[in-house]
Every structure is written in C-alpha cells, then in structure tokens.
C-alpha cells in the first residue's frame, strides 16, 4: 500500500527490506504468553506431518502397518533409506529435478529480465506496450487447458523429456516474473543509465553492468518462485516426460502407490528424501526466502 512513494525512495529502500516488519511498539502490554502458546499449538498442524514422515521412515515394515503413525520407531531401522534410494533411483531423479529447476530458473530470469527492461524503458512505444500485455496473457492459461496439445507438441519436437519440462515451467513463470521485474524496474531512476550512456556504454552494457545489479532483490524473488514452482511440480512432468527413467523426483514417488503398497517405511523414507532438500535449505535461508516471497506477493 505504498504506491505513492517516490521512485527514488523506493529504489533505495527496496534492497534493505528484510521481510521482518519492525515490531509494533505495543507499549504498556506484556508479552502474550497465552497467544504464543496457542500459535505454537497451531504450528503442530505443520510439524506433525513432518514428524510422522521422519518416524515412519525409521520404522520396520511390520511396525509401519499398524496405523499408529506417531509412535516412535522400535526397533530403529534405517535400512529403508537404502531400499528407497534404489527403488526411486534417487541420484538420477534427484539430479534430473535439480537440472530441471535450475534450467527453469535460468530461463525465467534471462527471458523475463531482458524483456521487462526493454518494455519498461520503451513503454511509450506501442510494440513494447503490446508485448507486455501479450506476455501477461499466460496468467489466463492454466496448464490443464493446453495440456493435451502440449503433450503432442513436445512429443513431435523431441521435447518430451526434462528439457521440455524446464522450458514449459519457465513459460508458465513468465507472466508473473515480467510483472515483478517491470514493477521493480519502474522504480529505478533512468538517470543512472543515462549518465552511463553519456560515458559511452551500449544498451547491452547498461543492462548487464547497471540494471542487472540493481535488480538483485527481484532476481532473488523471481528465482525463488521459479525454483519452488518447478521443483515441487507433479502435474506437468507427469504428463510431458515420456521415458519413466527420466522422471523427476516428485513423480517417481508414485511407485509406492502401486507396487510396494504395504512397505510404508520405504515409501516414507523416500518422501523424506524428496522433502528434506528444500526444507533444509529453507531453514538455513528462511529470513531471506520469506523476504523474497513477501516482496513477490506484495509488489512494494
């Protein structure tokens, strides 16, 4: 709700926003322990499924079928991980997932930052205004709408593989990313670039050496959104990738739904291995991730 801030003020303020709002000075009131306790209880709804995943992963298959998900593993059985590792071909599917997500992020950042820069700087020109509207159209297009033709198209062009998934993931991030970048770029004063141009820099140099560094916080935001959307997606890769041996991590989890129906301990070991990477990274970088997501959610 701060749209009225001057462009200069916004540009200088944006990079230091940490995502943590300044604590409201509730003078005269003491710390609300009852409220803290109530929220802590609510947080159990988030923690309980994660706890269940961890304890289930360390149970024996006999113990895992008794339905008592919250019980502690007895005896302690770490062998499920080895089995899950082999069944899901973890190193392969993990690497493919990483590759798809990284490529999605790279493609999204490259295409949307370049396009947004030209769109914002030449907004007065019709071509760029219309490009903006055109690119935003994908906000109107959920994947299910074009899924059937997409399956045919990727099969036809030899992109029915992780590469095709990354390209499509990037396409579906494009509208949102262009929106974020262009909103942010409007707040960067054009004078900075003009002085560089007077010193003889080309448009390309201005973009790489001046605009891109200023985009830093938004690059993080767009990157986080693109990474999470790609890394966690099941629908698109399950439709597009035709070779099951090239499937991404979330999709290979479905083998436990059929073949290994009662080996819950192995299934949960696999779920844990699928969930752990992002949760661990998130816990270490949570300040940064939350601030990035908040900036994306509320274009400031």
């Amino acid at each position, binding site marked *: *709700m*701060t*749209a009225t801030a001057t462009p200069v003020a916004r540009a200088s303020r944006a990079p230091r926003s940490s995502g943590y*709002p300044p604590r409201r*000075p*509730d003078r005269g009131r003491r*710390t*609300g322990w009852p*409220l803290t306790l109530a*929220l*802590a209880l609510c*947080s159990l709804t*988030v923690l309980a499924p994660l706890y269940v*995943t961890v304890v289930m992963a360390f149970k024996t298959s006999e113990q895992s079928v008794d*339905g008592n*998900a919250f019980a502690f593993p007895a005896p302690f059985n770490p062998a499920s991980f080895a089995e899950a590792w082999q069944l899901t071909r973890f190193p392969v599917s993990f690497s493919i997932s990483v590759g798809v997500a990284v490529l999605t992020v790279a493609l999204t950042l490259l295409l949307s930052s*370049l*396009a947004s820069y*030209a769109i914002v*700087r*030449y907004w007065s020109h019709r*071509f*760029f205004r219309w490009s903006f509207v*055109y690119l935003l159209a994908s906000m*109107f297009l*959920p*994947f*299910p*709408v*074009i*899924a*059937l*033709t997409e399956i045919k198209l990727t099969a036809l062009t030899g992109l029915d593989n992780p590469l095709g998934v990354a390209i499509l993931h990037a*396409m*579906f991030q*494009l509208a949102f990313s*262009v929106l974020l970048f262009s909103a942010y770029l409007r707040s960067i004063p*054009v004078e900075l670039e003009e*002085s560089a*141009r007077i*010193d*003889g*820099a080309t448009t390309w*140099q201005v*973009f790489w050496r001046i605009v891109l560094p200023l985009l830093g916080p938004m690059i993080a935001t767009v990157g986080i959104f693109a990474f999470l959307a790609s890394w*966690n997606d*099941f*629908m698109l890769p399950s*439709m597009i990738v035709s070779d099951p041996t090239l499937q991404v*991590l*979330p999709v290979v*989890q*479905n083998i436990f739904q059929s073949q290994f129906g009662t080996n819950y301990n192995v*299934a949960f070991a696999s779920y844990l291995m699928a969930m752990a990477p992002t949760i661990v*990274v*998130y816990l270490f970088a949570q300040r940064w991730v*939350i601030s990035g*997501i*908040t900036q994306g*959610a509320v274009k400031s």
Partner: protein
Amino acid sequence: MTTTTTAPAAPAARVAAPPRRRRHGRPEPIAYLFVVPALLVFTAFVVIPALVGIFYSFTDYVGFGDWSFLGLRNYAALLGDPGIREAYGFTLGFAVVTVVVAQVTALVLAIGLSKRIRFAAGLRAIFVIPMVVSGIVVAYVFNYLFSNTLPAFASAVGFDPLAQSILGNPDLAWLAIVVVSAWQTIPGALLVYTAGLTSIPGDLYEASSLDGAGPWRQFRSITLPLIAGFVLINTILGIKGYLGVYDVIVGLTGGGPGNATSSVAMTIFGGFTGGDYAYQMANATVFFVITVLISVLQLVVSRGRNIRL
C-alpha cells in the same frame, strides 16, 4: 548528473558517440532483441498450443488421423454430460470451501503473529514450511494419515463415523482434499496478510483503545477495512489456483471413490488416454473461459492496489 563515473569502462571509440535522449526517442534495434526471444518461445510453447487446442475443440479429432468439423456439437455434448457437470460442481464447490478455510485460517494466524508474542520469527518460519514442499509428497503423507492413523484413532475412542478411511467415503473424501490443499496454500496467504497488517499504522490501535474499543471492535473497524483489498485479491487468486487442483487429488484419492473427487483438470487429462481428445479440448476451452473471467475480475480489482501473486 552528467559526469558521474558509474559507467563501466567503454571502448575509446564509443566515447565520442553523441549522447541521445532515450526516453522519447525511437527504440534502438537491440531493444527489440531483448523482447523478441521471450515473445517467440512464449508464442511457440503456449499461444500456438492453446489456439490449436481451441481449433480441435470444434472437430472430432481423436489425437491422430483424420478429423472433420463438428461445429459446436462438442460443447453441446458437454452441457449434457453428467460426468463433466459433476466435475465442475465438485471443482467449484471445492474451490469456494477451500478458499474460505484457507483465508480465514491465514488471517487469524497473521493477526496472531503480528501481536506481541514470543518466538514470532520462529513460529512464522514454521508456518511457511508447507510452501517449500511438494504437494504430491505431502498428499501421500496425508493419505497414510487419513487411511490408517485417523481410522485407528477413531475406533480406539469409539467414534464410529470415522472408523473407516474418509478417503474411501464418497461423501467425505473431498474434506481430505480441502484439508491438504489449505495446508499447502495457507503460507502464501499468511505472508500477504502479514505484509498487509504491517502497513496499518500502530497509532490507530492506540487511539481506538483510548476510546475504549476492544479487540473485536478493533478488528472490525480498523483491521478488516484496511486489509480488505488484500482479502479480496487473496480470495480471487486462491479460487483461481484451486480450480486447477490436480496434484493433491492424485496423491489422496485419485479422483475416487468412483468419480466423487474428480476435478476438471482430471477430466481434461482423461482425454489423452480416453480417445475423446477433441471433446476434452472443448472442456479445456470452457475451463479456459472460466479462468479468463476470474483473471479479468482479478485485474479489475487489483488495479490501483499493490498486490499480485
């Protein structure tokens, strides 16, 4: 401003080039090169498939081989198809219920976190975790809880209605999908509301409490009016997202029992294996029109407001 040295070292020959005014001049050729790659791939991978799909929705194409025009017959058939009607009914009902559950919970949590409490940062970090985990994996975990742990618990305390897995009950399975979808999407809404709440000046609350306003009165007269825009946008975006529900259903019920929890996305995907390709493209086109209507609503509402997700 004219002699700042922030510019990178440029080749000597270029320094002589006369400075031009960029803001109102004609775009240089390279500016087009910045936009054209995005336009091209977007056209090739999104726009053309969409147009081709809409085209086939007017034919009897089965995914391969010959086809002929049917006009609007696929659309007419959609209207009379009970399976399709059920899918739309389920998807819309699910979207509305889930958006209410998720938005109310997120708002309550955000208000709680904005008060003076201990461990606010830590608690918020926990509440955001669902945002970083894969929906299908979470659904598999909940699948076990709903089909094994909950019935075991219910029969232990003697509560018979839940002694059977709710995932196998056509009347209750949708509840599980609401729970998991809300679980997954509350963090995003929570962060938006947190940002909205911090934009409210603290003196408003101080002044109102001097006038004798209690917490409920403060919520109704200060908090709610000032974050109404956030609530509206969150709701529209939420509904739009929930309409495409797929992953969570695959992980929980697979659309069953029967077709009780089959969403629109699932019926569309059925067209690839079911041989009714063109028919499902008509279905997809209808779904597209509904999404466009919701998106237009979103743009109208968000104009002048600062929030998009």
